[in-house]
């Protein structure tokens, strides 16, 4: 190795922040939030220190799967505008480093969750990482236009893991939270994919708008929004829901259906006129929609804890 190549190899040395970016901090925030809600809604109280440690493990596990995803997707990330600035395509982190960090943090987070909480929660976290990094990223994402439907499940596991931390098992309630995120994900991402179509086309990913066209995608968004209504209301009739949740779900689903109906009725001329304004607004709303569902569940849990819950069923 010559002197020149020695100094060159350190020129783009990654900083701590670059490694942190590999863990997809924005996805981690959602994971932390939904896992915490799953944990606090559970009927078994958890010591705050254990709860903190367990949620941290779940967050790190999610981050690890994000790093594995960035390692595997580095070829398509370099092509798509949305992902070009990620640490690997921008040259700040070497692919091998991302793989090493992803694998190490995966093992560490699963092992520590097993020690801090219980084996069931750890197994669920391990399955989630495998599901997202291998099943979704390496296989289905590039193979089927239904990739988002399947990938949504990876994001839907955290509240189940949170619940498992508290109870050591699962139940009707965490499964309904799982279903909520699972059915919410496709319309959320397809709205984004509608105006990011060129990106996915360039990267040759069979997203629904690429593979089946925008008209079919709009129909799918509306169909999933319809399906989301009963799924979103369902937790109201379990031990974690209540009148407050039910009321919130009715209001949010009404807005959701109006938004999805508008998307369904639009044609390409309308889209060209306002540059995807309706789709972008719908995308933004779906984030608020999910956030409010989980916030109100947390509120219901707090009210139950204070014995202030309305006995409505």
């Amino acid at each position, binding site marked *: 190795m010559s002197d020149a190549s020695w100094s060159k190899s*350190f020129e783009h*040395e990654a*900083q*701590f922040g670059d490694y942190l970016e590999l863990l997809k901090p924005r996805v981690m925030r959602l994971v932390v939030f939904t896992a915490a809600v799953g944990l606090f809604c559970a009927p078994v109280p958890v*010591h705050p*220190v*254990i709860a903190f*440690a367990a949620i941290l493990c779940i967050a790190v596990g999610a981050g690890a799967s994000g790093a594995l995803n960035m390692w595997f997707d580095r070829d398509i990330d370099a092509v798509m505008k949305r992902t070009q600035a990620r640490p690997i395509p921008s040259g700040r982190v070497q692919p091998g480093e991302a793989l090493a960090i992803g694998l190490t943090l995966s093992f560490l987070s699963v092992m520590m969750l097993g020690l*801090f909480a219980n084996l069931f929660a750890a197994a669920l976290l391990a399955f989630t990482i495998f599901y997202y990094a291998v099943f979704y990223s390496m296989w289905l994402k590039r193979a089927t236009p239904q990739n988002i439907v399947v990938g949504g499940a990876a994001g839907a596991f955290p509240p189940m893991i949170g619940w498992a931390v508290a109870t050591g098992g699962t139940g009707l309630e965490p499964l309904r939270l799982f279903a909520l995120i699972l059915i919410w994900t496709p319309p959320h991402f397809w709205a984004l994919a509608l105006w990011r179509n060129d990106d996915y086309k360039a990267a040759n990913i069979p997203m629904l708008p690429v593979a089946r066209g925008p008209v079919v995608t709009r129909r799918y968004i509306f169909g999933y929004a319809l399906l989301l209504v009963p799924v979103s209301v369902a937790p109201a009739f379990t031990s974690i829901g209540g009148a407050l949740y039910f009321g919130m779900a009715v209001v949010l689903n009404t807005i959701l259906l109006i938004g999805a109906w508008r998307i369904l009725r639009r044609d390409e001329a309308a889209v060209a006129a306002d540059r995807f304004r309706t789709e972008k607004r719908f995308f933004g709303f779906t984030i608020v929609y999910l956030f409010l569902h989980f916030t109100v569940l947390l509120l219901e849990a707090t009210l139950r804890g204070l014995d202030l819950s309305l006995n409505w069923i």
Partner: protein
Amino acid sequence: MAFREEHELHTRRRGRNMAVGLLLGGFVLLVFAVSIVKLSQPQTEDIHAPNYASEAGE
């Protein structure tokens, strides 16, 4: 070889090393805190342990 000389590389690395050090320190504290909590909570596994309870939470 003037390795002792302060290179721009060393300043860049300092931040990274500090962050990794803090992270490891935090991890040690976390394991310690969880150990204390686990040992002080009643448990049902070891009948001879001082924190034994016939049913956890009793």
